[in-house]
């Protein structure tokens, strides 16, 4: 969905904001610019996932402090940190604070554009993944206790007969539960079901949240 792609530029230099906006627009990326961290915080809620190009040297709240707040909010906002003083300690602390990329001024426009594209793609991926996880959680909430047990063993790769034996129920009942699981989870095949679970960081999370 290229139309939804939007980058927030936070830099106190008007020329930098303008030139980045022009550059991003040539790649079909929309942008919104802010002259300070405070301005950004006032207009974009921290909880909203976003892609941010952030200058380290800002008047008032520094880039590094904003980066830490964004990371604390755990909102899947990807931050590209730009700094004039490209020293190793700054880079290390930026990466530790959770920056997605670290770019040093003067930057290469094409390289920066690639980084932005990559960051946006990753942000899309994360967003898709999160949507899927949410879906998975919603669906698994519909499962009964017994069905959830069956699902866990299915993901472990056990055949129906073994599941029946483990749970101490008949093969027929197991088949019944299994069909219900597949239907409720909207899984086409067993392998589809397993992939969903694995991709979303194992079933346990959903299992716990359902409790």
């Amino acid at each position, binding site marked *: 969905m290229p139309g939804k792609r939007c980058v927030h530029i936070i830099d106190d230099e008007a020329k*930098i904001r303008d030139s980045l906006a022009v550059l991003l627009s*040539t790649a079909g990326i929309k942008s919104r610019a802010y002259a300070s961290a405070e301005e950004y915080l006032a207009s974009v809620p921290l909880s909203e996932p976003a892609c941010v190009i952030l200058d380290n040297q800002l008047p008032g709240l520094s880039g590094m402090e904003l980066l830490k707040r964004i990371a604390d909010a755990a909102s899947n906002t990807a931050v590209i940190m730009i700094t004039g003083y490209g020293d190793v300690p700054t880079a290390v602390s930026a990466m530790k604070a959770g920056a997605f990329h670290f770019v040093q001024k003067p930057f290469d*426009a094409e390289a920066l554009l690639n980084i932005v594209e990559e960051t946006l793609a990753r942000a899309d991926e994360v967003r898709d993944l999160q949507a899927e996880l949410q879906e998975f959680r919603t669906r698994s909430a519909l499962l009964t206790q017994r069905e959830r047990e069956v699902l866990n063993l299915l993901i472990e790769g056990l055949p129906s007969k073994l599941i029946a034996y483990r749970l101490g129920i008949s093969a027929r009942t197991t088949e019944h539960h299994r069909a219900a699981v597949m239907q409720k989870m909207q899984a086409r095949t067993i392998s589809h079901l397993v992939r969903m679970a694995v991709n979303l960081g194992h079933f346990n999370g959903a299992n716990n949240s359902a409790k």
Partner: protein
Amino acid sequence: MAVVNIHGQPALDQRELTLRSAWFSGRSRLTSPKFWLTGIGFLAVYLAFNKLTEWYQFDGLGITLWSPDNGLSLLLLTEGAVFAPFVFLAAVLTDVFITGVPHSLYMTVAAELVLAVGYVGLAAVLRHKLKFNPRRVRLADVVVLLTFVPAGTALTSFSYCGALYLGGALPADQFYAAMRHFWIGDTVGMITVIPAATSVFALLSKPRGRWPGYALVSCSVFILGTCLGFAALFGVGDAKEYHLFYLLFLPIIWVGMREGYAGVAAALLAIQLGLVATTTYLGCEAKDFSVFQMLMLVLSITGLLLGAVITEREQAAQLLREQQTELARVSAYASAGAMGMALAHEISQPLSTVASYLHAARRLLQSGAASAPVMDALSKAEMETRRTREVLERIRDFVSSGKLDLKRLDLSNLALKIGALCREEATARGIHVEIENIRAIPLVMADRIQIEQVLNNLLANAIDAASERTDGRGLVVMRVAGRGDRVVVQVEDNGPGVAPEIAGSLFEAYQTTKPRGMGLGLPLSLQIVQKHAGRLWWEPIVPEGTRFLVELQINGPENAG
């Protein structure tokens, strides 16, 4: 000088010897040829010394009233106890072949063995317990030398005379007199030889930066003073010549003040040789000579302490100067580094912007967009390059100290002040700095700090040029004179002049003939003078030297038409 001629030869040998012994300090000494060369050289010089210092022997027992030979022994032993056999052998050979002592060979061997052991002990205490090092000039070392050598020789003289007494070679009633005789001879011998060796080491390890004429003046005045002293001492015709000995303190103090420890050591050796030669020539009695030696000891102690204090102070001053130079250099580098960082930061901003606009323009062209947005991006990029240029211009202004702070300035006073600042260093390099003021010079509208920088630079250059002379007659003259509505400052040196191959590029940046220069002095000076609407030029002086001239308008750059 008869004194020097008679005794010059052994003194030279001794220098060579101490040098040789300084060359090694390894463990495999016994296999080193230098060890044997040093030992044999020592033997030769020792015997020669003894041949020449046979005066005033104590009853034919080989005890002399001046024993530079034993000074040499102690010096050698501070190099290592491994030399003890040579010291022992030298003493025995001397007794047998040169002084021809009357007692038996057993007696001689026993007494000299006692002596050798005593000196090895003294040398070991000096070197290892007291960390005495004959290779350095330090007040603490000198104090150690002046206290422990007399004490050590008192002990050894007691043991030596004791050995002779026990062997029946010395009657009991002469014991005390022999011991005193021995003590005086050894103490004065050591206190003249060891400092002389130290000064030789010091001169060899780092030659003084002063021009040779300075030492020549010190030396001439010393010789004159000493000759007058000797003339008064021995020419009065009184039986008690040593009454006027104190006159010899004056030349020693003179040398100490000017040349420090090394000078005093050499001067003391010269006086001692002079005393020995004169008293021998006049045929003084042993008793009188022994009084002279006591006085000589006092003179040595005074002179050496004074010399050590002066040298230590000079070393401290030198160290301070070096540290200051180093500090100035480091801070110059640091400020250059800081400026570089500032420049990088200032430039990276517009550079990033230009890169973005240009890349955007290229992408727009590739995608076949309309020309308006492309043009827009390109013109914005162009504007940014203009901004970059402004940044650079600002930094250039900053480097050349920005705007002029014009005030009425007294150039005569400024010249005097700068001259005073440079004079000490110049004098140390043997250069005479003169500041000439033609009176009644009008005040000039100028930036004091910047003009000071220019004059400082020109004066420093002139001093550098004049110091290339090797005859110690370097001269720098700074002259301030009014010329109508202008004031001219001339800085002249009598150096070798400007080499023809750099004459054309003298005012270009990064042109330098100095190993540590940046080549910015003259270009910056020119820039400053031009900002003042003044002129800076140079001309060769016939037959030798260079003259730099700065001409400033009295009313400053504003009224410069």
